[in-house]
Structure formats: C-alpha cells, structure tokens
C-alpha cells in the first residue's frame, strides 16, 4: 500500500469514526462526514463514462486564465492545454482522466503551507477564498517550499504542480469565479459544477487511481496483445 492510500484510508476512517465534524475556515463553518455537505463547497465533478479525452476543457481553462491584451482589449488567450488548471491524463489501455482540484473540505494543501499567516490577513500563501470558496494562492508570500503540492500529491488528486520557472504552485482550480469554463464548454457533458461529495467514488483520487478503477470497470482483465 502506498503512503497515499494509507493517508486516504485514514482520512476516510477518521470521518467514519467521527461520524461527522465541523471544519472552521475563517468565518465559515460547515459540516462534513456522513451528511452531505451543506452546499457551501462546490467543485468540478467528472463523469468518466462521458469523457472522451478531447482536451477541450484544458484549452478553455487555459484560454480563460491566460488572457492577452489586443488593441487595449483583454481577450481570451489561445489556450495551450498545458496551462489549464484541469489536466486530462491519457492511459493505455484507453481511458482519459480529467484531473481537477476536488476542493477538499479539509484542505490538506492549505494545512501543509508553513507560511505564517499575516495576523491581519489570516491567510497563508495557499488559502480558501472566502468569497468563492475555491482554493487560491498568493505568490507574493509563497516561499516555494512545495508543501502544498506534496500534501495534495500524497493525500489527494495531485493537481498542484510547482511551476519550474517561478517555483510557485499552479493548476489549482479557481472555478472561474463561479462559472467554470470547462463545464460550460465540455462538448460531451462530462463535467458538472456540483456540491463536493467526499463519499463520491472518485473524490480526491489521483488520475492513476481513477484509471485503475476504470480499467477494471471497462476491461476487467489484463490486456494482452499478440497473445
């Protein structure tokens, strides 16, 4: 069992034993555990049966978050898919896994961030935005330690990557301020913007973990070629 599986299992076990709990985030209080979340937290949720791996989501995310100035006007960029916060992983045998921040109620990424919060701002370099409830980053105070990426990678989806040039965390979904572009443009209706459900079958899993589940579901057996 990998470290990641252990921590994930522990996480779920704690929830099961605790039977629910209260997380305090700034001014926000909400329930998690056996009850569904109360709707305060939302995230992009993937229907893997519908995803075709077309990568449109990557391109619209990238275009929206990397605008360009043309004749004094701010316009969407061209959308190099690598710059998308959502990232689609292709596996062999064929499955495609869009991977996007799960907006974990217990925020391992934020917890891991060692930057001492400015007593007035009460927020770390990575934090939950109180308005949108999405995870955001403040690169001005980031010390490039990579703790958030490590935490996300060992415990959850692993979406956070440290930019090799700036050495700051990126690929964290900001939910486009409430109207996620990927959800709007996915041609196959594979994405929806929904309440976070930590009991969902794929909640917080890495692309590899999801792929393994799908291999089993679609292909049941180990595939052999030229056998």
């Amino acid at each position, binding site marked *: 069992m990998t470290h990641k599986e252990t921590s994930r299992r522990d996480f779920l076990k704690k929830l099961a034993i605790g039977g629910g709990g209260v997380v305090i985030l700034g001014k926000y209080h909400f329930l998690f555990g056996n009850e569904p979340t109360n709707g305060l937290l939302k995230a992009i949720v993937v229907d893997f049966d519908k995803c075709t791996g*077309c990568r449109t989501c990557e*391109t619209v995310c990238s275009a929206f978050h990397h605008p*360009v100035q043309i004749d004094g*006007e701010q316009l969407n960029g061209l*959308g190099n898919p690598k710059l998308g916060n959502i990232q689609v992983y292709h596996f062999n045998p064929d499955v*495609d896994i869009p991977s996007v921040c799960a907006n974990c109620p217990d925020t391992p990424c934020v917890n891991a961030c060692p930057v001492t919060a400015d007593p007035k701002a009460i927020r770390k370099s990575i934090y939950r935005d109180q308005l949108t409830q999405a995870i955001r980053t403040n690169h001005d105070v980031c010390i490039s330690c990579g703790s958030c990426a490590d935490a996300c990678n060992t415990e959850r989806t692993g979406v956070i990557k440290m930019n090799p040039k700036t050495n700051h965390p990126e690929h964290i979904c900001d939910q486009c301020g409430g109207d996620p572009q990927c959800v709007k443009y996915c*041609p196959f209706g594979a994405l929806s913007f929904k309440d976070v459900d930590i009991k969902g079958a794929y909640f917080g899993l890495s692309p590899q973990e999801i792929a393994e589940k799908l291999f089993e579901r679609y292909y049941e057996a180990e595939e052999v*070629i030229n056998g």
Partner: protein
Amino acid sequence: MGQYGILLDINLTTKEIKKTPVSKSDLKNFLGGRGLGMKILWDRIKKPGLNPMSPENPLCFMPGPFSGLPIPSSSRTTVVTKSPRTSPENKKYEHSSTVSYANMGGFFGPEVKFAGYDGIVVLGKASSPVYILIEDDKVEIKSALSYWGMGTDSFDKALIEKYGKEYQSCYIGQGGENLVPYASILNTAARAAGRGGVGAVMGSKNLKAIVVKGTKQPQLAKHKMYLELLEKARTAFREDIEGVEYWRSGGTAHALQNSSNNGTMAVRNYREGTFKEVEMINTKSARTQIWKRDFACFSCQLACKKSGFAKGAYGGVVHDGPEYETGTMLGANLLISDLAGLNKMIAICDDYGIDIITTGGVLGFLMEAREKGMIDLTFLDGIDLTWGNVDASIEMIHKIARRQGIGKIASLGVKALAQKIGKGSEEFAIHVKGHELAAWNVNVNAERMMITYATANRGACHLNSSSFSRQNNSAIQDSLGACSFAGGWYKNDISYRKFIEAITGEEHTDEEFNQIGERVFNLEKMFNYREGFTRADDKLPERFFKDAHTYGKGKDVLASHADFDKWIEKYYTERGWDLQTSMPKSEKLAQLGLEFTL
C-alpha cells in the same frame, strides 16, 4: 502570422539539427500539412528516381495552420514522403514511385506546433536505432536500442511511463523496423498514418519515434476574429445534435451496414459488394458486444473512436475498432464476421504497425488465389488461408510483419504477389499503381469510384474523391490539419477560408482559396509525372470490368473500358490535363504558379 515560418530539420546521418525558414509565399500558397509537405518534397528531391528507402528521402511530419489551436477537429498530422509502395507500368527509373501522404488524428501535430515548428523534416539514416526528443527549442537524438523490437502498444505504454502526459509521440512498430513496405506510423491509442508505407520510410532511417513537448503557440493575425469564429464553430457543432450524434454513436463503422446494403462494400476480395453477415460486425453488434467507450482526438466534438474489448478466445485486447476501413478490409473482404476475432486482428496489425487496408487486400488476394488453386499450402508455408479463417489470417499477419517465409513476398503487396504467381492472378490483384484499394467497392458507383481510385496521387485512395473540386477541397483540409469528418460544419460564416484569414491574415477570395487545393494536387501530379507515371497508370484492375456482383445491390452491373476511358477523359479535361499523357498543361501550371515544375 499564425505560423512560425520554421521547420525543424534533422539529419540522422550527420546528426545535424537546425531550424530552416519557410518562405512566406510557401506558407501562403501551400498552407501546411499535405500541401507544404509536398512543396518541401519537391524542393528537396531534385531528380526523379530517388530510392524511397534511401537516406536522402525526406520524411516530413506536417501539422497545419489549424494545429495547436482548439478549433474543433483540428488534430490531423500529415506525413509526406516519397512512396515505397507505388510503381508505374513502365518504369522510367528503377525506383520510380509516387508521392505518399498519410494522415493521422490524435495529438501529435498540435504538440509539434506547441513546440514552435510548422513541420519536422527528417533526412539521413541513424547508424543504430534512435528516437528524437523535442522540448521546444531543445532537440536531441537519443538511442532507441532498448525500445527496438517493441510493438506499438507496449512502446506506447513505455513512453507514457517515461515521459508522462506532457509529451506526445508518434512511432513505428516491428512492421516499420522490419521495413515492411506498407508499415504505418501511429500515435496515441492507435491513430495511424496508415497508408503509403510512411512507416517503412521511418524504419529505413532507423527512427523509432518522435517524442515532443511544447509550450508555445504562434501569434495570430486577427485574434479577436479568430475567437469569434471559434465560438461560432463550437456552437455549430453543439447545436447540430443529430449530426454530431452520428459520429459519436458509431463513427465510420455506421457505414459497414449501409455500404453492405448498397452493394458498395469490399467483400470476398472485391468480388461482391454485400456482406451477408454484416449484422455480426455492424455498429449495433459492436456497441452491445465490445465497445466500452468513445474517445476523441484533440479538441474534437465527434469522438468517432471506440475502445473495443471482448472476452473469449480472441478477447483480452483493448483496441479501437472496428471502424469502416478496418472492419471491412479484415472483416467483409475476408468473410470474417467474428467480432472479437476481427478486433484482435486489428489490434495485432496496429501493434506491428502495418497498414490494415493493404493487409486486408493482401489476405483477400491470397485467399482467392488459394481457392482458385493458383497457389497451394506449400506456397503459404502451410497456413490454411481460407475465407473466414481468423486463425490462419492471424498467422499470416505475423509472417508479413516479421517478413518470414511467405511473409517476405506477401509484405510487398498484391502487385508483387500477382507477378510472382502469374496465372492471370493480376486480374484480381486489387491495386492502382501498386497501392491496394480501400474498403469501398467499385461496381455500383463505377464512375465515382473508378475516378477516385485511378486519379489519387498516392495510388488507390478512398479519401481522394471523384470530382476535381472535392479533390482540391480535401487537399486543403489535409493542408490545414483539419479532419475530413468534420468538414461539413465548416461552411458559410465559419469557413476554412475565414479561419485562415483570422490566423494568418491572408485574405483569399473563395476562388484563390480553392486554388490552393488545386495547386497542391497538381504539384503532386507533377511529382508523379516526373517519375514516369502517365495515363497508362490511371487504371483499375480487370476485375471491375469482368466480374459483376452475383447478388445484392449492383448485381450484374459492370462498367466497360469504353466507359472508363470516357470518364477519365472528362476528368482530365476538367483538370486541364493532357489527354494522352495526363500531364497538367503548361497554362494550368502557370495559372497555379507551378511553372517551376517544368
């Protein structure tokens, strides 16, 4: 604008890697993809008769101006080179052959653009197996010794393991390594540049793969106009629910049933046009029995590809298929209706990286020759190749890809086999210029299919069409990096022409724009003409003048040689080509700016 004006030029003999500029006029007149690839080929192959398997043959990997932009269905890469498959009736040179252009979807072409290139040209031959690794400006030639001998499936897995999601790649299997003349090049999940032996040329250079990662995109001339067109194009697809659903629900495989019903399917080595067991391999059967999911190429809303997976004797393989060409050529054409067996045969061919259309043609030809008693079991190395026999077909595929025994000659295609066997077998050796026909049979739509096959510049090709205007249009599509399946949506206010204006700033009139396709087609033709291909080579096998189908639609229908002569002359006349030689007239060449070919 909209293009870099840069080719990545790699010589595997000298290990020289450089960026070569592309002139503005070439970008304007040939766009990219198949067109620009042809222009490069013309410029670099100065004399006819070059051995296509020699280091001097340029192998061009060409995305187009649409590549790397999320324009719906803009995923295609065309591989352009001199063909190792074709030969004229009367060889002017030992190695006379046509141009070859083979086109694949997937993710490779867009990534080449992201890396900052309008195309990659590979020359020379590495002294031992290599692959090319491209990370934007950083380009390395790396040893592929540990990968040599791997099938495309395990190699693909190895690349995913080593390079992860940020890299895209294309590669050959053992077919290309063993120099099977009809070897293919594949990328992600078996998207194949299947036809015309492009994989053999790659193998002849000892090049296993190109692996690329890019972070760029070119600046567009009219960014805002482009965004507006893009929004409209996305909406056009989204709103055409029925049109899009056709592709999603079955892709080209829908044609299996329809084509059989219409008598236009290649059945029993093209002897018949209707497959009595088509229900067993049609989309309904595939959907209920083997298709697990649909998948799409880069930025595509059609998702015509299907992951097939079966259990049982031929099970345990996950593979895209069958679609129309693969399902017909390895299914109906061989009277094979075992869906799992068919899927496995497709998987094996793709794993080796050999052209499935040609493989199906070769197997069908051998089955017929065997049935007619022209060859015996000894000729076939003891493989009991009979109609409908999956196991024997699989054995033969192994022989071909490994070029062992009978595979040595079978790997040369039906023209060579018929020459070896004789006994009149050339009448049912189904090829044009040495290139096997695709899965659409001829008799029912004789004029359309005969002209389509006879006039295609790479030898028999189903993607060519019969009218010169549609031929020109597909040359444009292939030059843009656009997928022909989505072509129908790009009309009126979201035409290709408008997209090109937004991307490059070039404002073509409709006529000028169409002329690009005509220019590409005629340059290919001039290349072939210089190699010694003339009107005598634009011809069909005798089968299509002698053997009417015995049942189904099109029963008893046959075209005559006189019909064909009339049709081809009509076509040449419309094209502005000489009726005797088939050479484009000098006025035509001048009108297209192709005087340099004279």
